């Protein structure tokens, strides 16, 4: 048992840490957030130059060959800076799915382009009626010429508005929530038959509702057999989201602590009041739990399938529960200032809360945990 980062992981942590410290002050982020694109294309190129876009991919494509702990380190750093760029959408969700399913030729073309910063992707999996169930897929694809023709609607596709290409989950067989018959496709985001309605999310990111109407699609992997690879990518996504939340929660706690030490009322710093001290302690306790579960999730991806699923569900559920407490308390302890758009902590609070709405919320993951309650598991 060893919780220390390896030398390589520590270097990765320092790289991301420096980038966020130097390149991501709040005013710079605000400028990028309110730009048309919603993030900084220059920053994305910097990610490429620093090798961050290759973290989960093999060295053959210029990657880092990283697993859960490496993604954790990157995402936690991004969480500290409230990074806006489409890393989760492009690298973690879409990129790893292509990496699992794609042919050598597809990987050579697409993964290399991701790593080089030339290709931005989005994963179009969830549907308007399916809430957090990734097996609820009504979009369908049929063979058409050399490729496929894809039809259906996809909901709140993270960074789907600016993606160059989309990785889309559609049915080639089965119905309802069948696990068999789900296939993954690459679709050009600007192709005929693709219409996108992009928008800003409450936490300052971008997403899109996407409609496919006989859009030309290229199959990834074997027809009807995408479910395992999809779930592996979603698992990585959960690790990344847990870590991002932990990074953001850490900053929310730090900023709140600094604020209550500085803010004077009744002639003293409000941090002198025991009622506030205990609430601050509780925030830190939630942060420690979140950090513990993030590590647990990141180190569990190679565990037996049901054990891994159980731990990831527990991790994301704890993040949802603890995150809400930290976000609400951060606003409360900042008083009126916590309500202001100009206050950084408000943006941290929004991102932390919204992370609970991505890849399954507290309720969804508690249901998964209830389903897996009898899975025997020794933590270490």
């Amino acid at each position, binding site marked *: 048992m060893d919780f220390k980062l390896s030398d390589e992981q520590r270097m990765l942590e320092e790289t991301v840490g420096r980038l966020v410290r130097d390149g991501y002050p709040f005013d710079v982020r605000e400028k990028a957030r309110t730009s048309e694109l919603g993030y900084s294309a220059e920053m994305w190129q910097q990610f490429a130059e620093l090798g961050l876009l290759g973290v989960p991919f093999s060295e053959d494509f210029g990657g880092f060959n990283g697993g859960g702990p490496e993604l954790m380190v990157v995402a936690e750093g991004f969480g500290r800076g409230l990074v806006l760029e489409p890393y989760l959408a492009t690298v973690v969700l879409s990129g790893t799915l292509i990496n699992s399913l794609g042919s050598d030729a597809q990987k050579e073309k697409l993964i290399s382009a991701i790593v080089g910063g030339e290709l931005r992707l989005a994963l179009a999996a969830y549907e308007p009626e399916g809430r957090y169930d990734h097996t609820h897929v009504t979009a369908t694809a049929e063979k058409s010429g050399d490729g496929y023709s894809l039809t259906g609607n996809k909901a709140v596709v993270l960074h789907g508005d600016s993606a160059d290409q989309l990785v889309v989950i559609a049915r080639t067989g089965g119905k309802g929530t069948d696990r068999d018959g789900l296939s993954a496709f690459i679709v050009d985001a600007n192709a005929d038959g693709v219409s996108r309605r992009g928008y800003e999310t409450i936490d300052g990111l971008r997403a899109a509702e996407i409609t496919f109407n006989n859009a030309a699609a290229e199959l990834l992997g074997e027809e009807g057999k995408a479910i395992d690879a999809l779930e592996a990518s979603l698992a990585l996504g959960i690790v990344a989201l847990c870590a991002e939340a932990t990074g953001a929660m850490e900053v929310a706690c730090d900023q709140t602590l600094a604020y209550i*030490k500085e803010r004077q009322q009744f002639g003293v710093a409000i941090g002198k009041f025991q009622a506030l001290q205990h609430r601050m302690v509780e925030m830190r306790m939630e942060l420690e*739990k979140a950090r513990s579960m993030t590590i647990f999730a990141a*180190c569990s991806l190679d565990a037996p399938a049901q054990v891994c699923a159980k731990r990831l569900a527990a991790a994301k*559920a704890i993040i949802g529960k603890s995150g809400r407490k930290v976000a609400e308390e951060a606003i409360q302890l900042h008083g009126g200032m916590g309500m202001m758009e100009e206050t950084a902590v408000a943006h941290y609070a929004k991102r932390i809360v919204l992370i609970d709405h991505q890849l399954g919320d507290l309720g969804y993951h508690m249901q998964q945990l209830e389903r897996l*309650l009898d899975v025997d598991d020794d933590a270490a």
Partner: protein
Amino acid sequence: MDINFTPEELAFRDEVRSFLDAKLPKDIASKVKNGQHLSKEDSVRWQKILNEQGWMALHWPKEHGGTGWSPIEKHIFEEECAEYGAPGVLPFGVNMVAPVIIKFGTEEQKQKYLPSILNSDVWWCQGYSEPGAGSDLAGLKTKAVREGDHYVVTGQKTWTTLGQHADWIFCLVRTDPSAKKQEGISFLLIDMKTPGITVRPLITLDGEHEVNEVFFDEVKVPVENLVGEENKGWTCAKYLLTFERTGIAGVGQSKAALKHLKEVARKVQQNGKPLIEDPLFRNRLADVEMELMALEMTNLRTVAAAQAGGVPGAESSFLKIMGTELRQEITDLFRRAAGPYAQPFLPESFEADYDGEPVGPEFANTVSTKYFNMRKLSIFGGSNEIQKNIIAKMILGL
């Protein structure tokens, strides 16, 4: 980064398991699992078995007969003991007064007291709290006046756990009433057979006799029973309070309790189905399960930090709060699992030799007393509010 035990750590765990398989008396484990009363003889019998194995003193240095184990090994041992239903070692001698004697005592004191603690021949209790000194421990008033080669001790201690069995008590006493609160306190060892000591039982809300009041009426204590310097007892007290607290999270106890709770919930029927399939109950079980995972990982992070040479300080306050709240939550679920049968109070059934008919399901007889008894967890050892004060001051700098 690797959350799995190393092959060496797994081998150590196997060694502990083999020992527990072979040496833990079945009658004692059964009492622990069923929440029945342990006698003084049960505790002493188990502790002597541990001592024969050389595994009694987890936190002592090796030269005094300690295990010399690393933090991870201690953690593994405590987890396995809880899993097997071994009684917790009574801390007052081996984990409380002994480390103070080892750190601050004279050579004579070490020779006089340590061997009998190691072999559980002498039963110790703790004389800290007083009616007017609980969380504000330094407000204690029991006074010790030096007269020749004796101190004369007068005052009252309270919440003295298992003091009814004790041979000796370690006490914080006021030796300089004119000094500032913390500065006039001394650490004194007192033979419970000394004339002038009276022990009175305190019955707690669950009907148990676990704690006592101890009265001192001009009790003569030889000066060689002073540990450390006169008026420097607060240093000993603080050392003891922050001393190695690897087990404070109670992860092993909570895991064993949750496992038992699930077994019970599979058997109890509600609306024609096992209770474990009831959506509300299952949801609360899932909540406990995930909180327990978070606690276990947080505990392991602290253990690993100690392993790497860090000194667990105020972090153990986090573990105390999280761990006690979780254990209390599990007792609440047991109570709910029993349903209406949480009501009957049959204290005679807590004895292992009880051969009467249970009222309702067998597990139900102890759930309510246990629930009320476990309220103590968030009060003793520094209440959870005091732990928050400690974190606020030591970690947050507030």
